[in-house]
């Protein structure tokens, strides 16, 4: 017989926990749900847009009756549980319904706090909490003119704005002298007030309500200072209180909320609780993002997995008022031990403040331009050392895609048919619609449903912004400890260090050690693990071809039509008549239509069938040419100019240096593709300052530059150091490459890697510490002993023949 699970509270938190549980264990429990409201589960966050008329109730339903039926869940709508009998393990509802449980889940949420002033119970005085309240406000707006909102916090302002949209005259009464003082400092609060006033709202700040006056229904609000405001409708939005009466009556330990442990259990281990009714590590949460994190943990334990822990959440705030961008997170007031970085442009309506302690962001407030809110929040959650980016921190990450977006970053100003994701052709309207109709909350949800941001990732910032503006405060990006992929809870760094520390030598062993949740991982983690093992054990690891993308398995780039390209190496961009002849002969022999000079100073042959590859390679090998690894997360090209041998400006032999760099590093596998360049003078014809590793020759020696990128997002290199000899360039580059190989996450180019770990770290490891530099370089050279074996030659001679032949011809 199945165990019985009862959920009290049919809201977002409880139902999310059920959804997570059903994904893990669809048949473990007989599930019964009690909900006081006569609806299925709806998206409470989107009540504000319902009030403004931007959405209807139907559009914000998350789980309708059919969902409960499909999942065999018994739903008691409109029934309130009045008693929990923990001895007999059953719950009793107001209509007498009794249901037994083996495990109980309490998610009773919270209720709005009503200030107990005289007149608070007059008709026309309501809260802003559920569909009933919204219906009431919409009806009142039709008949009445004057509305007062008590409370100038997030919820109060959203209610006030909604009522203005419905045509009412609205006054907001707020106890403090700053709006949203829990989310904003006074500078941002003033700017917010100004723009809300421009939208027609009136404010009475530092105003305390004494009494709500009226006879049969509300007629006005009397303040302590004697002022009186006319009102036909009063909305109290001064805060929420956890609903814990039921839990208290069942003698479950409560303080401000129902107290739960890191496993979301109350003091009765059969009774779980989550959502706005609980108190965890002394915190009570009122936003959706933390509740979802709790739901995950809860489901994990209900499914008897028993390893997840909830350790509290960091939250950020956004206001859902059309046209007003504001963001805040963490401790944005600061104290004596903190520093502030501030930018304020009152006329331009932009304000940003970042609070820093010990070189880490601990809080941020932004108004007007909130594009980088998600980025600051991520830096804050990750505890990133920001000393290297201090100077340009306020200007933002500019992590929104530059290409294809024409620098457009005010996502709210975009029309619905504007393209957000240039790779997959997804427009703003598609994304917003998917978020609201499909109930999406995270970046991964949006990626799965719309494909936006799932290819090159350059539009990730825009999608995050859309999530944030559509969902308001309740959008949360990935947790601070971002797992490698959904197959595991462990982040990249943990897995990498674990592989070395525990001497793990194969992919199945890694998966076993770290308790992978899937049988053979997925296309995200398998290639990453394969690379981490190649990097850790270059001499002994047997490369797993089936864990490589097709390009690396076939040593050629798959094209959109399923054919392949072949690009042989041209060392340092140099070639010979013999090589050119071999390329030309191959192009003719294999009927290649497209011969292209690549951006990396080489020649590419396009449109080859997979079966033809070994024969083409064999011909090229005979002319001394080897694989250019143009298909791999590997060393690609070393671009050069002709240097002082020919150029009248040349200061050093940049061509010779480029060839030497390429001879040293070709064949090495990397976290992502890796490009180098050597320019003979500061005119920099080889474009060394947008490469992963670039050398600019000067009269006195060589400038070394790192972390450039000319692709999705242009990033100029950071200057690493000057050296005076070619030998030093070689040593520094080997050390730097090895540091990148050992520390970057798989599929992380050097540019984001440097932004994540900081240039100082690289300077410490490669420039300042001579012994370490030599060790890094030695490890690279050691690893190269096993990788500089031309993969084309091996395959031209018959290796991996199954990869290049059909199994059988049957038609």
């Amino acid at each position: 017989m199945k165990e019985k699970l009862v959920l009290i509270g049919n809201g977002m938190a409880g139902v999310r926990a059920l959804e997570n549980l059903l994904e893990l264990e669809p048949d473990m429990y007989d599930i019964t749900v009690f909900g006081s409201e006569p609806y299925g589960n709806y998206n409470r966050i989107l009540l504000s847009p319902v009030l403004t008329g931007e959405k209807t109730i139907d559009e914000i339903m998350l789980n309708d009756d059919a969902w409960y039926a499909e999942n065999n869940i018994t739903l008691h709508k409109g029934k309130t549980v009045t008693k929990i009998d923990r001895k007999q393990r059953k719950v009793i509802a107001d209509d007498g319904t009794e249901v037994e449980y083996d495990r109980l889940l309490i998610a009773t949420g919270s209720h709005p706090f009503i200030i107990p002033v005289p007149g608070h119970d007059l008709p026309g005085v309501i809260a802003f909490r559920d569909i009933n309240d919204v219906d009431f406000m919409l009806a009142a707006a039709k008949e009445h003119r004057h509305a007062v909102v008590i409370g100038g916090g997030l919820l109060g302002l959203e209610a006030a704005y909604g009522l203005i949209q419905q045509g009412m005259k609205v006054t907001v009464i707020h106890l403090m002298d700053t709006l949203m003082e829990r989310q904003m400092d006074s500078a941002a609060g003033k700017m917010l007030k100004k723009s809300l006033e421009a939208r027609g709202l009136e404010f009475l700040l530092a105003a305390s309500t004494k009494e709500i006056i009226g006879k049969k229904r509300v007629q006005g609000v009397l303040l302590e200072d004697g002022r009186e405001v006319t009102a036909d409708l009063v909305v109290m939005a001064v805060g929420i209180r956890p609903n814990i009466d039921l839990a208290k009556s069942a003698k479950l330990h409560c303080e401000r909320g129902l107290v739960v442990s890191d496993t979301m259990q109350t003091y009765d281990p059969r009774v779980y609780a989550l959502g706005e009714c609980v108190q965890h590590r002394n915190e009570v949460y009122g936003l959706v993002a933390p509740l979802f994190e709790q739901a995950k943990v809860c489901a994990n334990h209900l499914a008897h997995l028993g390893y997840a822990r909830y350790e509290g959440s960091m939250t950020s705030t956004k206001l859902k008022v059309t046209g007003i961008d504001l963001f805040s997170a963490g401790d944005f007031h600061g104290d004596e031990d903190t520093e502030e970085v501030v930018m304020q442009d009152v006329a331009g309506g932009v304000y940003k403040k970042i609070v820093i302690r010990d070189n880490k962001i601990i809080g941020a407030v932004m108004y007007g331009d909130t594009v980088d809110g998600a980025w600051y929040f991520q830096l804050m959650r990750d505890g990133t050392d920001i000393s290297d980016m201090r100077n340009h921190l306020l200007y933002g990450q500019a992590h929104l895609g530059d290409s294809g977006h024409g620098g457009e970053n005010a996502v709210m100003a975009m029309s619905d048919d504007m393209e957000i994701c240039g790779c997959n052709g997804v427009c703003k309207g598609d994304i917003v619609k998917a978020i609201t109709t499909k109930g999406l909350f995270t970046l991964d949800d949006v990626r799965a449903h719309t494909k936006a941001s799932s290819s090159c990732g350059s539009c990730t910032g825009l999608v995050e912004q859309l999530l944030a503006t559509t969902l308001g405060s309740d959008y949360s990006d990935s947790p601070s400890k971002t797992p490698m992929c959904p197959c595991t809870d462990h982040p990249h760094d943990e897995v990498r260090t674990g592989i070395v520390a525990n001497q793990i030598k194969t992919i199945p062993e890694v998966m076993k050690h770290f308790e992978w949740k899937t049988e053979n991982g997925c296309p995200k983690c398998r290639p990453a693990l394969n690379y981490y093992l190649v990097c850790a054990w270059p001499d002994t690891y047997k490369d797993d071809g089936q864990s490589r993308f097709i390009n690396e398995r076939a040593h050629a780039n798959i094209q959109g039509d399923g054919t392949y390209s072949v690009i042989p190496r041209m060392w340092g961009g140099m070639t010979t008549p013999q090589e050119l002849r071999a390329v030309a002969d191959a192009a003719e022999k294999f009927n290649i239509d497209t011969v292209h000079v690549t951006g990396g100073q080489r020649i590419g042959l396009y449109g080859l069938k997979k079966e033809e590859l070994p024969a083409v390679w064999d011909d090229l090998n005979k002319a001394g040419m080897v694989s250019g690894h143009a298909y791999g997360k590997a060393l690609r090209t070393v671009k050069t100019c002709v240097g002082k041998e020919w150029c009248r400006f040349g200061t050093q032999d940049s061509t010779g240096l480029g060839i030497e760099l390429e001879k040293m590093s070709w064949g090495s596998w990397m976290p992502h593709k890796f490009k180098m360049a050597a320019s003979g003078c500061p005119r920099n014809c080889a474009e060394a300052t947008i490469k992963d590793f670039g050398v600019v020759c000067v009269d006195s020696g060589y400038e070394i530059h790192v972390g450039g990128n000319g692709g999705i997002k242009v990033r100029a290199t950071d200057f690493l150091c000057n050296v005076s000899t070619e030998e030093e360039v070689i040593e520094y580059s080997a050390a730097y490459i090895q540091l990148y190989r050992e520390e970057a996450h798989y599929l992380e180019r050097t540019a984001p890697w440097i932004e994540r770990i900081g240039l100082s770290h690289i300077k410490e490891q490669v420039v300042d510490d001579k012994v370490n530099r030599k060790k890094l370089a030695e490890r690279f050279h050691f690893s190269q002993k096993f990788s500089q074996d031309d993969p084309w030659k091996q395959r031209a001679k018959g290796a991996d023949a199954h990869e290049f032949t059909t199994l059988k011809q049957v038609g």
Partner: protein
Amino acid sequence: MQAAVDKNADSSEWIEIGHINDIPKLGARVVSAGDFNIAVFRTDNDEIFALRDECPHKGGPLSQGIVHGKKVACPLHDWKIHLDSGEAVEPDEGCAASYPVRIDGDAVYLSLTPKKGCPNK
């Protein structure tokens, strides 16, 4: 050894296509059927599945994708396809035709009559 056997398929149609070890574990081989290709997959547990070698999204060759569990990821745009049914993993929608496979000893047999329930595309 197990295989997805379709009992409705006429046994006279079975074509021997090779030895199970011709197909790499967590990999695939291509059987050419004239106008089109069929991808024959082998999972970690030596289950064999056959799908038309065209992703329902943009026709990418599924045989070249990464096999994980009972799914393959298309090499072009990373759609995930169920090896047993040929259906795309939700929320994507689409289907690659699935062909019956039989294993006798170590020999793998394929039928060219696709299973029902999915357009031959």
